[in-house]
């Protein structure tokens, strides 16, 4: 595992095309995307529905491969990596936050957070430590034995954030993490994401439809029809609600 130095980009997307095939028809989704993220970046991705945000995020997270172009993340050329190596790579480098939380319903909060740690060589004791720490960071140290159905949406999303950070990944990807939450819970999630970036120096990419959510990232990228429309530094980026 190569550890990138502080100035090496965490994410390097070069001239990426992505198309999906449905039988005879080819659906072009990304048409020449370029993107670079430095360590500690916090990027918000916006754009109309169907513009290719999730597709790009999936490529960066190593869930899919580009049709052409290169996606290099944490020093790994993902397009040239085998499926099984990609799985291992994801478990080390990427934390996932989904719109629908995607917790395993039959596992408790504790067990959900522990799940990705079972893929690491950590001892049982170290795992317990890390699960507790992660759940305490998201403020759910007292809900460890609760099942997802016993938690509110906001709490579920916090468990999923704990799961995303438990393995201490370099990169965190979040696809509309507040999309299914009320304003108050959504705000709590955004606070947490801000902390992960500021306090724990995580590089974050977040897809969102909400401009005020995007405004709290360091940088906002706007897409349309699979192309970059704008990429601006948010001068007013703060961790608190405007």
């Amino acid at each position, binding site marked *: 595992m190569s550890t990138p130095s502080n100035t090496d980009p965490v994410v390097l997307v070069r001239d990426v095309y992505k198309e999906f095939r449905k039988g005879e028809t080819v659906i072009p989704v990304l048409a020449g995307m370029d993107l670079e993220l430095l360590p500690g970046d916090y990027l918000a991705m916006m754009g109309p529905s169907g513009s290719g945000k999730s597709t790009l995020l*999936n490529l960066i*997270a190593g*869930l*899919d491969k580009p049709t052409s172009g290169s996606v290099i993340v944490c020093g790994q050329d993902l397009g040239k990596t085998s*499926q*099984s190596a990609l*799985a*291992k*790579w*994801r*478990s*080390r480098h990427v934390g*996932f936050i*989904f719109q*629908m939380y*995607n917790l*395993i*319903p*039959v*596992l408790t909060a504790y*067990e959900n957070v522990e*799940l*990705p740690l*079972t*893929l690491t060589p950590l001892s049982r004791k170290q795992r317990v430590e890390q699960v507790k720490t992660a759940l305490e960071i998201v403020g759910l140290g007292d809900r460890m034995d609760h099942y997802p159905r016993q938690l509110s949406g906001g709490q579920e999303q916090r468990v999923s954030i704990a*799961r995303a950070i438990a393995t201490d990944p370099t990169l965190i990807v979040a696809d509309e993490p507040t999309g299914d939450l009320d304003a108050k819970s959504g705000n709590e999630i955004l606070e947490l994401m801000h902390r992960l970036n500021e306090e724990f120096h995580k590089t974050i990419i977040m897809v969102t439809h909400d401009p005020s959510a995007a405004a709290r990232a360091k940088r906002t990228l706007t897409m349309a029809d699979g192309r970059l429309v704008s990429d601006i530094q948010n001068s007013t980026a703060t961790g608190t609600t405007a």
Partner: protein
Amino acid sequence: MIPLKYNLRSLSVRWVTTLLTCLAIGIVVCASVLTFGMIEGIEHALTSSGDATDLIIMRKGSNNELSSTIAPTAARDLINLDGIAKDAQGQPLASREFITVLIQPRRNAGGTANVIVRGLDKVGRELRPNFTIVEGRDLEAGVNELIVSKSISTRFENLGLDGSIEINNVNFRVVGLFEAGGSAAESEVWADLRDLTSAQRYNGAVSVVNMRVPEEADRQAIIDRVRENDQFKLSAVVESDYFEDQKSSSLAIKVIAYIIAAFLTFGAMFAAANTMYAAVSSRAREIGTLRALGFARSTILVSFMLESLVICLIGGILGCLATLPLNGLSGGTQNAATFSEITFSFRFGPKVLLQGMGLALAMGLIGGFFPAIRAIRMQITNALRQS
């Protein structure tokens, strides 16, 4: 490895489906274990009847006792041959036996079936494994009494204790019930040799001679001597070989049973597969999540196979447990060699239970394999988009 509790809890969330699938599998395993237990029982009956130190002497060319006849004078010579073991009174352990078949009504209006009636010398009892009178008393010679195997007595209308039957218009009365270690004798009705042959107007006729010859060399000498005697035209076979031959009669049953078990197992595999397909498609997003987190395809395959195995093994255990109350229960079927009723006890030993669990294992592995393959063939991004 994905923790097993993930599978166990997923199964308990879908407990109705899980239970129904377990039951379906349990029924198939139960039915298969019953048939295997029946085959074991039949084979045991034939095996335990055959003693490697006993000889059966029959007419040359006959392959079962029913078609054999031995001249009375020859029979008398045979029981006095050298090398035959002696009982406590110094009598040779050799029994002249006459075998006939009667048609008798079954109990509970079950139609009629052939029953073997054997007339034999008193000493013949010692040639059967663990011969014991379990009810009533042993028969007395000369007064037309019968003893009946316990399992035959429960299957035939007139053959219970104190029952009576007509043999060629001569009345015979049942005075005792016996057991004989699950051997072929447990499919028979016994009379005194002379009583039976005189009723049949074959006074003194003999079908076979049974004898115990403990020494290998003596046995061989008798076998050779019988073969070389052109006057009598007889042959001597070791009893265990004789019954080994009779096992061919259970072969047909065995083949049919295995075919039925195979069909049932195949059906149960579909039940298991169906349940697992449903599990996989309803948990697509979970599978996508597990893969996103970095679980390898092989890990997820194993996890779903384990889930299928758990269902099938629970079903298998239920199925095996359901057969236990029937252990030792007797049943009857027709012996294809003698066309008469043979009785046996279901035997569910470790071998039969393991065969049943083996079927359950096969159902779990094969029934779980294809759904598990479907689970890992999904594109992660597609799986994550499922509701």
